[in-house]
């Protein structure tokens, strides 16, 4: 197996690239975890929801809006869309078996994917992000402004979200509704709306991830398909229950996969995805709750 020539500068560069990838995974993984925590549902449509909102951003920018003007508009649309999806599509199956709900979110993914092709066509599109692709020198390592921007936006979002959950009344109510819906109703929390709110927040997180990754890859309806898998892997890695786990898992996965792809010749760029799969499979067998999650005990 041929390993390419090694330099420290390149390792640093690869690490930076891994962290940037990881930041995207973390964003989407966080969205998955928030929906899982509030509704115990894995949202297979998370990727498509993100891509859909990115297309909306693309359209707005095509009509002359700048990225940062379009950004809040898109987030608002994403939030409303997420809430609407929960109310209309998920609400009726709230108490259904897990398989039914999985199938419904798959249906949602198919529907959104088809809708994107119908509205915007299947072709790849260039998405002009807010950050320059110029590289700057950080302690002797060339890193692109875009990478720094992506990481900064993702970190900022995570911090905001943490503050929201920790210090606001609504954030507290969301957490309460997730851990104990019956008692939440007794203190006057409208639990149904909290679930919808969870979907809204998740949709916003997805939209940000989509708008951050689109300038790096190309925008097309399947843009998020593999990224979603990495995000699932990141969420499972950190423990499906743990928001911190999702962020740590995302960064860890991004870095691991980037380094494996670069330095293990056999894996290269084609086997990154199977490698990620093997990684979480092994982890699940060793630590079924993920790195930060709690293990549900099966009672006999």
């Amino acid at each position, binding site marked *: 197996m041929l390993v390419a020539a090694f330099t420290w500068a390149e390792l640093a560069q690869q690490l930076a690239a891994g962290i940037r990838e990881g930041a995207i995974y973390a964003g989407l993984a966080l969205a998955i975890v928030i929906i899982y925590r509030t509704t115990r549902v894995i949202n297979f449509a998370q990727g498509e929801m993100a891509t859909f909102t990115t297309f909306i951003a693309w359209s707005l920018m095509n009509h002359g809006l700048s990225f940062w003007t379009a950004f809040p508009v898109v987030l608002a649309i994403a939030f409303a869309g997420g809430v609407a999806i929960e109310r209309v599509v998920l609400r009726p199956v709230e108490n259904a078996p897990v398989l039914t709900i999985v199938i419904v979110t798959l249906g949602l993914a198919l529907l959104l994917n088809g809708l994107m092709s119908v509205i915007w066509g299947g072709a790849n599109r260039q998405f002009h992000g807010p950050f320059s692709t110029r590289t700057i020198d950080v302690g002797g390592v060339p890193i692109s402004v875009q990478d720094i921007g992506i990481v900064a936006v993702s970190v900022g979002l995570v911090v905001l979200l943490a503050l929201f959950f920790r210090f606001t009344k609504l954030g507290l109510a969301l957490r*309460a509704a997730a*851990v104990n819906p019956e008692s939440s109703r007794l203190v006057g929390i409208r639990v149904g709306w909290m679930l919808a709110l969870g979907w809204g927040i998740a949709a916003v997180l997805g939209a940000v991830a989509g708008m951050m990754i689109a300038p790096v890859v190309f925008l097309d309806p399947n843009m998020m398909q593999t990224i979603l898998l990495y995000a699932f892997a990141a969420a499972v890695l950190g423990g499906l229950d743990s928001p911190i786990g999702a962020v740590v898992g995302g960064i860890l996965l991004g870095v691991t996969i980037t380094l494996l792809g670069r330095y293990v010749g056999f894996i290269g760029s084609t086997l990154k995805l199977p490698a990620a799969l093997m990684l979480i499979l092994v982890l699940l067998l060793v630590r079924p709750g993920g790195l930060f999650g709690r293990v549900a005990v099966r009672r006999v």
Partner: protein
Amino acid sequence: MILELHNVEARYGPVKALHGISLRVGEGELVAVLGANGAGKTTTLRAVSGTVRRSGDVVFAGKKLSRRPEATARAGIAHVPEGRGTFSELSVWENLRLGGYTRRGNVKHEARRVFEFFPQLESRLDQQAGTLSGGEQQMLALGRAMMARPKLLLLDEPSLGLAPIVVTVIFEALEHMKGGDGMSVLVVEQNASLALAHATRAYVLEVGKVVVEGTGDELRTNESVRRSYLGY
């Protein structure tokens, strides 16, 4: 009258648990519901707070009461259910904040009052509620309910599994609340002598029906109640 039930029925799936209950709670009253296991005491409370499907009229503060628990909570009813209904994953302070969820603005003032009654809680604000002792959890449950400044408190078996000294603290707090704030209490209690000692009035349920009602003193001297529930 703060609360009136007219011929209320409730069922769990196909099983009918209440066969037409009528009862009243006046303002500032502490009304006890007594009865054997399965008589429908807990279900009566749940029918009021909307945590079980019910039919029949429930009038609260002059208005027809909603059947959804979040709406009854907003109307001013605090229900401390069986198993206390605290959020064991969340901290003590978070539990108290959630208790005041329906109140606007700062809840510091309500919290002060809770700590006056239950000083133990104040020293454990950051502790996870699930790690409290049974007595402290019951205090937290009551504190959580007080945070909402309810007009009516529904209390399910507050003395269950607690040391007598804790029970005394809890019932003293109840007396204070109804005296000071004009809050009414509807309490279900296995310990009939304890309940009757504090109750203004009481109802005795048997298989989902009210069989005896009267003031605390009347019931204490009632022959059959004495034999069945007081044991002397």
